């Protein structure tokens, strides 16, 4: 056993302390800062007004994602198409102006590398194990999948990082979420994290840094781990770490911004030392049995409102806590659901495959494998596939996945946050349901009055082709002869 055994979180924390303070806080160095157009304009403006430079533009990367329309960005002759919403256009223009003015690398909406910040960071090798990484977006937790201490911050903190490359923080408590055993092949990383959020509750991780451990986590691919870590915030935890391992190193090797040559060797050596020591103590440990995880779906307006697809809408009276009962009643009214109603068979008018949670190549492959040889049902009015980045889109096109989706009646879009948050033209109309691979089913999240059911990419694809929430294990097999 090591002397003073430490957890992964504690090791990264300790390595980034500029100064410990008597009041228990610490000045913590920030290695990486991702910037997008929504939470940065006020921070840039404040720097400008105070005459302060951005301390380390070389550690900062800016990319627009929330507001960008996912329809074509250039016309047939390659000319930029205008953005219809003047406010979105203004916010996007502010980032395009601010980033170069402060010396920050800017990936524009028409660059092939553009995409959702949390897809772009890992893809470019900007996200590295053992780094501290922040972004003015709560789903920054995603980068924890590579062993980065990554968390979302508000605009004042964005400004603080820009000006000082540090934050004043107090250490979080640590929580181990250990997933024991093996996941069933019918179950995805999305089902796993929905199950975990249901188990912890939407505030169960508040005040904690989660570390996901156990056989089922080790067995996940890096992209699957990104899905799990991404939604840590839906359980209240700002950060969701996974120890870097050989899969992590293989994923990062050769990426544009990843270390090269001798630096790579040295980095891997250090990264290998980050795993939680034997005998290290977490403030809390939660054990999840992988065999309990089933294809899942949300019924309510909190990400903790999860049932297996074989399940029914719960009766609000079945909750012990009166506040939960009231919340469940409000949720059911908003969602237009009755207690006891079966989840499977619930008709959906919209299907969204995308978002920082589920828009990577493996997500698109999983969805395409369900869609292949089938067609979007007549009652589905919108079925969008929105790749997480231009590089994901190109990869999918090289594999012919775009043709599978288009042949089935899906729209194949340009990368961005899209229908996850109703800030751009992609929205779910009021009163309509959406089977969505995104991360939040909050009231109005996908548009005023929109009814969101969070699912995995394969389950979203199954809902699209049947027109209702479907247990993908019940899909009739497609006869080989019927395939296009």
């Amino acid at each position, binding site marked *: 056993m090591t002397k003073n055994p430490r957890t992964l979180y504690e090791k990264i924390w300790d390595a980034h302390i500029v100064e410990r303070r008597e009041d228990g806080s610490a000045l913590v160095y920030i290695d990486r800062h991702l910037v997008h157009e929504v*939470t940065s304009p006020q921070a840039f*403006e404040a720097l400008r007004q105070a005459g302060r430079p951005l301390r380390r533009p070389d550690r900062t990367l800016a990319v627009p994602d929330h507001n960008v329309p996912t329809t074509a960005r250039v016309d047939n002759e390659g000319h930029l198409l205008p953005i219809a919403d003047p406010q979105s256009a203004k916010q996007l223009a502010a980032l395009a102006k601010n980033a170069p003015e402060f010396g920050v690398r800017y990936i524009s909406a028409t660059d092939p590398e553009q995409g959702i910040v949390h897809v772009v960071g890992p893809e470019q090798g900007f996200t590295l194990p053992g780094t501290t990484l922040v972004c003015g977006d709560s789903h920054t937790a995603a980068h924890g999948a590579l062993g980065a201490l990554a968390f979302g911050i*508000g605009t004042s903190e964005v400004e603080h990082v820009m*000006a*000082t490359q*540090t934050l004043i923080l107090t250490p979080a408590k640590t929580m181990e979420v250990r997933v024991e055993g093996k996941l069933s092949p019918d179950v995805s990383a999305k089902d796993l994290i929905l199950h975990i959020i249901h188990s912890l509750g*939407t505030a169960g991780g508040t005040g904690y840094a989660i570390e996901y451990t156990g056989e089922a986590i080790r067995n996940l691919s890096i992209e699957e781990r990104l899905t799990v870590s991404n939604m840590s915030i839906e359980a209240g935890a*700002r950060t969701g770490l996974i120890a870097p391992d050989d899969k992590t190193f293989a994923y990062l090797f050769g990426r544009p911004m990843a270390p090269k040559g001798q630096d790579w060797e*040295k980095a891997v050596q250090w990264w290998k030392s980050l795993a939680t020591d034997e005998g290290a103590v977490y403030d809390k440990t939660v054990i999840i049995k992988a065999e309990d995880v089933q294809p899942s779906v949300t019924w309510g307006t909190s990400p903790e409102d999860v049932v297996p697809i074989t399940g029914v809408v719960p009766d609000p009276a079945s909750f012990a806590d009166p506040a939960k009962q009231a919340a469940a009643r409000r949720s059911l009214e908003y969602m237009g659901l009755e207690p006891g109603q079966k989840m499977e068979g619930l008709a959906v008018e919209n299907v969204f495959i995308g978002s920082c949670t589920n828009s990577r190549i493996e997500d698109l492959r999983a969805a395409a494998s369900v869609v292949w040889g089938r067609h979007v049902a007549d009652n589905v009015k919108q079925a969008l596939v929105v790749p997480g980045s231009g590089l994901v889109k190109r990869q999918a096109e090289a594999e012919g996945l775009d043709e599978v989706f288009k042949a089935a009646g899906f729209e194949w879009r340009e990368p961005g946050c899209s229908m996850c948050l109703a800030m751009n033209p992609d929205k779910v109309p009021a009163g309509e349901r959406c089977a969505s691979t995104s991360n*939040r089913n909050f009231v109005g999240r996908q548009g005023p009055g929109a009814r969101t059911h969070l699912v995995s990419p394969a389950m979203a694809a199954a809902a699209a082709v049947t027109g209702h929430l479907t247990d993908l294990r019940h899909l009739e097999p497609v006869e080989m002869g019927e395939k296009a």
Partner: protein
Amino acid sequence: MKAVKIVEGRAYPLGESNIDTDIIIPAHYLKTTDRKGLAKGAFETIRAKEGNVFDNPEYKDAPILIAGDNFGCGSSREHAAWAIKEMGIEAVIAPRFSDIFSGNAFKNGLLTVVLPEADVERLLEVAKTDPITLDLENQVVTTPFQDRFHFEIDPFRKRCLLEGLDEIGLTLKDQDKISQYEDVLASDRPWV
């Protein structure tokens, strides 16, 4: 940041749990490049309902909001704190806040006071008819009925709030320490 010492007055007795940031300020209001003009979108879905606390003349311009568990969960949008401040609210009381929201609130001089559920229940009752007083210096919430609830607050945050300190200005005084750290980092982990 303006210093905060005492917040006194009527309180909106909202009381619902899991008030997420999309409820506090829906995404379509986030397309702004400054910090102003957000109050009009604050709690839009709640205000669409008749008889909501925010449009009840009884609580007009109340400087305090009392909410249920897990207030401010969800997104990192600081617009949520800006919108609440612009409504004239200077303090929120709840049994628990999301970590990111409470951080954002603090940066804007919006007090977040955590009290046990029973105390919050009691304050929700009092708020219907009477004012409430928050004293940051003494870390106590009081009512005209001799209720006296002590609350905890991070000492660093307390000092910043009481003195109205500019955090970035403070940190910039430590530039030398940051530079020293960067020198060590460049030799120990040159790939970063």
